[in-house]
Structures are given as structure tokens and as C-alpha cells.
């Protein structure tokens, strides 16, 4: 974040605060398996454009991420799931993501799906995320901020999207090549699609730290 971007933001009214719904799954919550929260790994915070919000990740994602030894959380931004609706566009939703990120015990990886990818990318311009994962980004603003603290960035898209202009623009913006997963971009929360996608994301995350 540049100093100019910060001083501009400090002079615009803050979005109306809302009581955000945050779903958390810690490795300690997995009674059936011996997995400990590994303090060497960074927690993960997910958000999605799906109206279900954090609840969408309850089916499989959070448990699966926790199984890899990571603290897993998901946030419903304003108007999603259990979070009341309030005024504000993508910036206000990015604010919700940042506010959720600072409540996570350690520096967190941001994972955004669909519109959530746009909010996560905006949030990464204000908060030094440990990593930024964009899954099938949708309605991404033309001007994306440079991520604070230069985190590694991953772009994962479904096979059908690889040629889309949106994906091209995002991969050019960060100078990275997208990875692909089999399945529909809107249906990533359970079943084989989710398994494949999570495998890709988690193995990439594990590869980031020596």
C-alpha cells in the first residue's frame, strides 16, 4: 500500500461497521485425527461471492484445510450468510475481509472465490497477507492494488475459463500463470471438483515455505 493510497483512505468515511459472521475450524477441532495446529504454517481465511458466505466453506473446505495443520477461517461479508446487509461496494467488502483477517491469530493467507477473489485482492492491498489465492475471479476491478509485503499469489481457474479476458487480465496484473482445476467455477464447495481444487491450493501453499 502506498502512502498516498493510505492517506486517501484515512480521509474517506469508514464503511458502516457490521457484526461479521466468521466460521473457524482449528486443527484441534478434528477429534478423529491427530493433527496439531502447526505454528510454522500460516492460517487461511476464505471468502466467496456465493450468497451463503462463510457457510459455503463448512461443507468441506475448512475441515480439509484444518487437516493440513492450518487454522482455517471463513468470513461472510456484508449481506452474506449471517452478516447483516449494509451499504458499501467492493471496497466495503474488502474492509470486511481485512477486519476478519486481523482477528486471525497469525498472519493469514487470503483465499477468494469469484467476487470474493476481487475483495481478497483489494484486501491484500491493505493488509500484508501471507499469501493470496484467487479462485475463478469474477468482477475484478481494473486497477488492482499492489499487494502489501509482496506475498506469493496463486490464480486457479476452471478449465473452461482459461481463455477468458478476465483471467488473462488478472494473470497479467500479477505476472503469474494460472493453474487449472476440472469442474464448474461456481460449484467448488463439494464433490470431486472441491477435492481437486483444494489439493492444488494446499500443495501450492505448502510449497511456499521451505
Amino acid at each position: 500500500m502506498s502512502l498516498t493510497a493510505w492517506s486517501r483512505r484515512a480521509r474517506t468515511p469508514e464503511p458502516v461497521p457490521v457484526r461479521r459472521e466468521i466460521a473457524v475450524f482449528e486443527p484441534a477441532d478434528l477429534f478423529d485425527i491427530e493433527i496439531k495446529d502447526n505454528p510454522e504454517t500460516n492460517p487461511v481465511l476464505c471468502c466467496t461471492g456465493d450468497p451463503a458466505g462463510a457457510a459455503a466453506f463448512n461443507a468441506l473446505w475448512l475441515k480439509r484445510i484444518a487437516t493440513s495443520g492450518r487454522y482455517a477461517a471463513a468470513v461472510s461479508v456484508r449481506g452474506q450468510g449471517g452478516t447483516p446487509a449494509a451499504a458499501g461496494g467492493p471496497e466495503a467488502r474488502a474492509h470486511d475481509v481485512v477486519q476478519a483477517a486481523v482477528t486471525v491469530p497469525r498472519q493469514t493467507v487470503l483465499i477468494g472465490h469469484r467476487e470474493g477473489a476481487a475483495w481478497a485482492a483489494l484486501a491484500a492491498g491493505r493488509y500484508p497477507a501471507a499469501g493470496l489465492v484467487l479462485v475463478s475471479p469474477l468482477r475484478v476491478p481494473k486497477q488492482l492494488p499492489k499487494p502489501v509485503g509482496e506475498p506469493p499469489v496463486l490464480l486457479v481457474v476452471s478449465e473452461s475459463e482459461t481463455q477468458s479476458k478476465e483471467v488473462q487480465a488478472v494473470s497479467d496484473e500479477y505476472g503469474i500463470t494460472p493453474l487449472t482445476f476440472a469442474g464448474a467455477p461456481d460449484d467448488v464447495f463439494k464433490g470431486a471438483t472441491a477435492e481437486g481444487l483444494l489439493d492444488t491450493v494446499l500443495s501450492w501453499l505448502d510449497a511456499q515455505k521451505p
Partner: protein
Amino acid sequence: MQEYSSQAAYDRGEAVCVIGAGASGLIAVKNLRENGFEVDCYERDTVLGGLWNPQNQHSPLYPNTHLVTSRSQTEIPDFPMPDDWPDYPSAAQMLEYLTAYAKHFGLSEHIWYGSEISHLEPVEGSRFEVVVKPAAGAAARRLRYGAVIIATGHHWSPNLPSYPGLDDFRGTVLHSSQLKDPSRLRGKHVLVIGGGNSGVDIACEAAVNAASCVHSVRRGSWHLPKYLGGEPADYALARLASRPKYLRRFLTDRILKGPKRLAERMGIEAPGPGPAGEEPVRNGRYLEHVGDGSIKRRGEVARFDGYEVAFADGTEIRPDLVVLATGYQPKIACVAPELLGGTRDEPAPRLFARMFSPKAQTLAVAGLVEPGVGVLPIVHWQTHAISRWLQVRKSDPERAESFKLQVNAESHHDAVEHVDPRRRLVVDAEEYLASLGRIIDTLEQEPAK
């Protein structure tokens, strides 16, 4: 003790030494880590949070200390405070916030508590040797670092005025930092000396708790309420600063008209041309307490005499308790004043761009400014610039050269020294941030083709 420590200094390579684990120190550690530096942070106390931690034995907190700048203007730019916190968080919340910051970025593992830096000196060109004196037991250790950032703050050394007869005064005299327990005010006749933020805050505490409260101030000051036009005052004024100049003056005068008339009604003269000229006192309750008579304002104290205190205007009172809210003296003890651009006779630091030592490339001071706005964001950008500079210095000689020119140019207008030592650390936030922005741009932007 010396004979127990090994004579050879332990070499920490390119690691950076940060002195102090208060707000400024923590931000410095985080930004250095983010830029890939190894960091050792030394804290003389056994807790983090510096002045915000009441467990710190030197803590300057007084009863009911709150931020005088609002949350959005005070939070660290990349780690916002929870948005359901009040506009003006308390000292306890501030400590909670700094603790969360340290935990979130894993800073604690880089902090050595109970370790005071007793001395530091340049060695081998640009490197530094520091002497670490543990609080108890073990002998002093010597270590070498690639760079040193001093983040010790300037609220530790109480500024104690001298008045004739003060030593023989029969009542109790406390500095504001010694007034930890508000019940000490209860039922007493209290005299508060000092018209700064702490004096005004303590006078308000005394107004509701003490039997009577007299407030002695030497000069007029700007009184800003904590809210202006339905918004936190510093936020409202900062928003005006982004307007065009001709409008800014007009709008600022308009928004300040009410508070100004109220202060005049209470017999307070505002000094100088505007709030930019003098650090304003930020307290919304004070003038109302003056208005309802629970705070009586007086001029300067002339002398203490047994149980009595006489003022310059000839009147006398008999206080039980005198609180000296006379502020602090900036003091950096661990380093020779010459290294920070001072002299033996005039030890006040003269730094490049208010942070870089004019004598050593790898010595910097974080947070030694009084910008009249939240200091944490300023320290964030200062330490961001320092970290980038330490990187660029090694890897990019060309950019390092243009940085030096830039910093010299930025420091030029500081050459006109404030004569008043009280105002030596004062900077205009607007100008200083712009200057920091230009320095960071020089360090980061791609060179023009």
C-alpha cells in the same frame, strides 16, 4: 562484571538492532522482518507496549488515559483496529491492540526483555557495536549489527519545573506519571500545573473526583473538542486538508469558529495563527468543566510557601495535592549526541528527515516527532522508508545516491530551528507525510526511462 563477558563481540551479521518494544519498536520490527531482515529488539522493561503498558515501571499513563487522536487516524495503516471499537480507544484497548499486532506478526520471538542498551558505537565503517546490559545478574554482552534503529520514544524523562519553595512544600507533589490511582484525587483540594493534554485530562478527572480543582496554565492554547461537525475532530480537519488551499482556510475557520468562541468565553487566548501553529489540546469536557466552575483556571505559579501556593497574580490557595502535568523531555541516553547531529552542549538530535542520523548511514530514530496527528501511521511510514533504505543501500548504489540527495533536500527546511525547546519535535503532519512519501518514492519507484 566485565571479566565474565567474552571480550570479542558476537557478530550478528546483517541483522538489525531495534531499541525499545513500544509501539514504534514493534512497528519497526514488523517492517524490517517484512523486508527480509533478521531483527533483535531490546526492551529494558519486561513487557511490550511501552508507554501504553501500565505494567511498565516507567509508564507515563495517568488515570483514564485515552487516545487524543481518533481510531481511523491512529491505527497502523496495514493492521486496522477493530471497527466496533470507539472513536477514541482507551489506553487498555491500545495495549490490547499492540499485543495483538505483536502476536499476529510473530514479533515476540525477536524481542529480548529486561535488556537495556547501555552504549552503542560505530565500528568497521557502517556497522554498530552495542552493549546489552541485562536487568539482573548476567554480565553485559557486546554484539555487532548491520544497523540500529532507536525507538525509545520521548515520554520517559519527566520534565520537572522548579519553583521557589517547592522542596519545602508541605502538601503532596506528584508528576502526572506518578498519579496511577484516581482515588488519590478523591476529596482533595487539587492543583494541576500544565496546560497540555495530560494537564487538561487530569484537571477533568479532578473536576469530578476532587473536592476542588485549580488549573494553572502559563500560556493560552488551542482547545479542540474531540468532535467537530459530527465527526472526530482530527478526521474532520484531515479531510479539509485535501481540499484546495483557498477553500481549506475558509472551511477550517468555519468549522473552528464555535470552539474558538467558547474558549474565548472561558478566558482562554488562542496563540498563533491557527491550530497548525501550535499543538492543540484535545478535550471536549474541559471547557464545560471550566464553564460550570468545577475547574478554576489560574495563571502561572509564582512560589510555594509552606502549605500555600502563590500565583503570579498575587492570589494564594492551599492545595492538598499538586500534580505537575508538565510533560517529558526527549532523551536518548544510549548514544553519543554527536551521532544524532547534536553536540555536548546542545544534545537535542538534528536528524535528516527527522529519522536518519547525519553521521552514520545505518543509524536511524523512529517516532521522534510530534506531528499533532496519530503517531503510529507516521512511524509505520518512517520504518518502511528505513527498511527500504537499508535494502537499497547495499543493492542499488545509484538509487542510494539519489536517496541521499532527496533526504538532504527534505531536511533543508528543518534548518530553521524552533527556538523553543518545547516545540523541537513538532512537525506539520501534512508536510512531513508528503516528505516521507517523496522519500519512499525515491526508494521504490522504477527510475524514469
